[in-house]
């Protein structure tokens, strides 16, 4: 008995749908989702994988079937049917992609908004305020009352480009603020309210974090794959990345923008800890660094960035050349004021 083509089409449609749904949910292509934002982006990716798998199977299926079913037979030199077009069909396959991309667009918009991408405070542009890394660290080296808490933003301060606060937390200060400086070929993390400077990024789990990212020499890009977040560090500009680390653990911090010969080696760790562990680490760093800087803290104004960072250089894997470039950043800050 010859099965009608409509039945075959229906069977194929159901099969493709089921396979696509399965692939979309079981591809295991993403690393662990360690931030509050990551599962949302994974859900978006899963949706796009489902749709893409379906479209892929349809296109490849048509090509493979055509090759076998419509192959020229021996001794058949005739042409195929002279079909020039089919307006309803063309309208249909114009409308379907249009609807699909509209759906993906709206979904992406929702995810992006929920991440804080549309935070109006993050859509203003600011050039790097003069941030004397060493000075800032020394000036704040006296322990504050609440070392984990972020300082309130100065009134009228323009916040930089990037991903800002989610709609839920807009207008509120983040729990922790960290200044991130990218330089060839290392990341330097400064906790401005406690004066701690580190080559590794320590963050508390479940608390909102704000990174203020800048660069001293060339463009870098801070990427934490497990958080699904990335933001360029651009000389002369500040950018912002606000998010909530969620899963305790250690993850890679990668530089994603080509920044010179050792670009591939420019990486460090982000360590997500419980709030208690984070506070303990912060306190230990405050103590250690204030002891280590006891002599220089007396007169920070006379201290160059190179001199300040020299004791830390070995630990961070920064060479002398890179430290010199901090000097350039210092002057850049002067000009932008």
């Amino acid at each position, binding site marked *: 008995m010859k099965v009608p083509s409509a039945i075959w089409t229906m069977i194929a449609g159901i099969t493709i749908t089921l396979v696509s749904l399965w692939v979309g949910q079981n591809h295991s292509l993403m690393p662990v989702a360690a931030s509050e934002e990551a599962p949302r*982006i994974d859900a*978006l*990716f899963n949706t*796009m994988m489902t749709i*893409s798998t379906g479209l892929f199977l349809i*296109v*490849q299926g048509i*090509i493979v079937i*055509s090759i076998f079913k*419509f*192959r*020229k037979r021996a001794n*058949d*030199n*005739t*042409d*195929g*049917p*002279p*079909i*020039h*077009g*089919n307006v309803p069909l*063309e309208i249909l396959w114009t409308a379907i*992609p*249009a609807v699909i*991309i509209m759906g993906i*667009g709206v979904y*992406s*918009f929702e995810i*992006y908004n929920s991440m804080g*991408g*549309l935070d109006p405070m993050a*859509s203003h*542009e600011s050039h790097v305020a003069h941030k004397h890394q060493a000075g800032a660290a020394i000036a704040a080296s006296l322990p504050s009352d609440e070392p984990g808490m972020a300082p309130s933003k100065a009134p009228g301060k323009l916040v930089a480009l990037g*991903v*800002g606060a989610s709609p839920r937390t807009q207008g509120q200060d983040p729990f922790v603020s960290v200044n991130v400086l990218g330089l060839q070929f290392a990341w330097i993390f400064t906790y401005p309210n406690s004066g701690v400077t580190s080559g590794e990024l320590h963050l508390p789990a479940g608390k909102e974090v704000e990174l203020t990212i800048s660069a001293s*020499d060339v463009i870098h890009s801070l*990427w934490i794959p497990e958080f*699904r*977040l*990335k*933001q360029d560090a*651009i*000389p*002369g*500009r500040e*950018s912002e990345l606000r998010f909530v680390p969620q899963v305790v653990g250690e993850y890679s911090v*990668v*530089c*994603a*923008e*080509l920044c*010179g*010969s*050792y*670009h*591939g080696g420019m990486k460090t760790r982000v360590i997500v800890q419980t709030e208690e562990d984070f506070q303990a680490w912060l306190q230990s760093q405050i103590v250690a660094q204030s002891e280590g800087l006891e002599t220089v803290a007396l007169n920070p104004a006379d201290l160059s960035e190179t001199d300040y960072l020299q004791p830390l250089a070995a630990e961070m894997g920064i060479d002398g050349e890179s430290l010199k470039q901090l000097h350039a950043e210092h002057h*850049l800050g002067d*000009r932008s004021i």
Partner: protein
Amino acid sequence: MAQVTEPETDNLGETLAVEAGGHTPWREYFSFSTDHKVIGIQYLVCTFIFYLIGGALATAVRTELATPDSDFVSRELYNGLFTIHATVMIFLWIVPAGTGAFGNYLIPLMIGARDMAFPRLNAIAFWLIPPGGILLLSSFFVGAAGAGWTSYPPLSTTGEKAGEFIWILSVLILGTSSILGGINFLTTILKMRMPGMGLNDMPLFCWAMLAASALILISTPVLAGALILLAFDLIAGTAFFNPMGGGDPVVYQHMFWFYSHPAVYIMILPIFGMISDILPVHARKPIFGYQAIAYSSMAISFLGLIVWAHHMFTSGTPGWLRMFFMVATMIIAVPTGIKVFSWLATVWGGKIRLNSAMLFGLGFVSMFVIGGLSGIMIASVPFDIHVHDTYFIVAHLHYVLFGGSVFGLYAGIYHWFPKMTGRMMNEFLGKLHFVLTFIGFNLCFLPMHYLGLQGMPRRVAEYDPKFATVNLICTVGSYILAVSTFPLIINAVWSWIGGAKASGNPWDALTMEWQTASPPPVENFIGEPVRLTGPYDYGMGDRNSGIPMPESQANTPMLSGGPTVS
């Protein structure tokens, strides 16, 4: 379709003459010839040589990445290798091969013209290519530019200054060549069509070249502007893009991508056109949705101009602007989807001749769709933030530019080789070439999606050892891809010298270039060319009697055989 000019017997006889082919002396190819056919082949051979050089650089890059450590070449040289690889492939292979080679060779033939509108300008455009390319490669002797083909400042102005300046100069020369070509194509297509050929009677390759040429003329000068300013920053100490002097590196990114995103369409649009001409011939069916395909090229051309900032979602782009560019980018999926579905409908129900040209044509559709689907994904801002500047992007762009453009160029070579040389290519070597290319390509680039999603950034000489196995697979794939070019080279050289002689129309195709001798004589047609059918009227007319069915009566095709006009 437009009306057909009734053929006059004398003209018809002249038009269909196939015996007066013009074999070109080899010295002609090394001369300042103004014949568009010679220039087309000059472009094709010259750019193919650069393609081999670019491929060798890519193989060196993949050899470095076979192991996690930076142990094959120095880090500086590694950066130079991938920078020059990308520059060669884009500016010296895909763009000049798609537009310069096939555009030059085919456009006048397809529209029944005797040459391009400005033959000398045409020759100048080609003769800018070899010095531009040699200049670029010479930069290895002084320390090649290592800031990537994007050449973002401040990195590009603080690295190898001599190499970077050579890079800028060579890209300016190649861009100038591109602009001269674009002017020529636009004028030729708009002004030199044979009598009776309206825009809607043109082969779809002409439409695609019209769209690509418009893009070249609008966007390439902006790149030139960006590079000239960059050169000032580099050698004169100005600060257009240098934040130390009040400049802004993000402005460079806007200017660069204003050209370099449309460049993707400059690369792929001619290929779209070639595929639209190749599939109907070998599927023996009219192209499905001629006008939809033609106008979608123009839509892609326009939309391609307003999506550049999707390369900058993680840099200095405000949130609302990211949304605009996301939507604009996604909309391009619609005209592209129209093309893909039309190609599938063309193939469906045909009488497919699965020769080398068709294999690469179908391979193009198949691979390009993968690149297109990942393209929609990375148009989505939240997802792009994760994968931007990672191997996911490397995979995506190679699926579009190798799986798309290069597969299409291969299809074009197999399809038009008989017309260009008067000889047929060897089918066994062609199929071997396809199999090796298909396997090598997918082995090399498919796993890169995974690498990028998992956390491997692009442009790194050293990487996390957990990615070692997958990278090794990619490297093996790249070697297969390198080997895959040998059957093509052997085939082309051997067939050109001693391949079976081709008739004027070995594929029984209906576009005008096949209605003259192979290779065509000087000035293309003996007598005035006359259109007998539309470019895609397969399945109409009476092949046995050799009488084509006039288009005015084409609505009711009477026979399954197509016309034989050669």
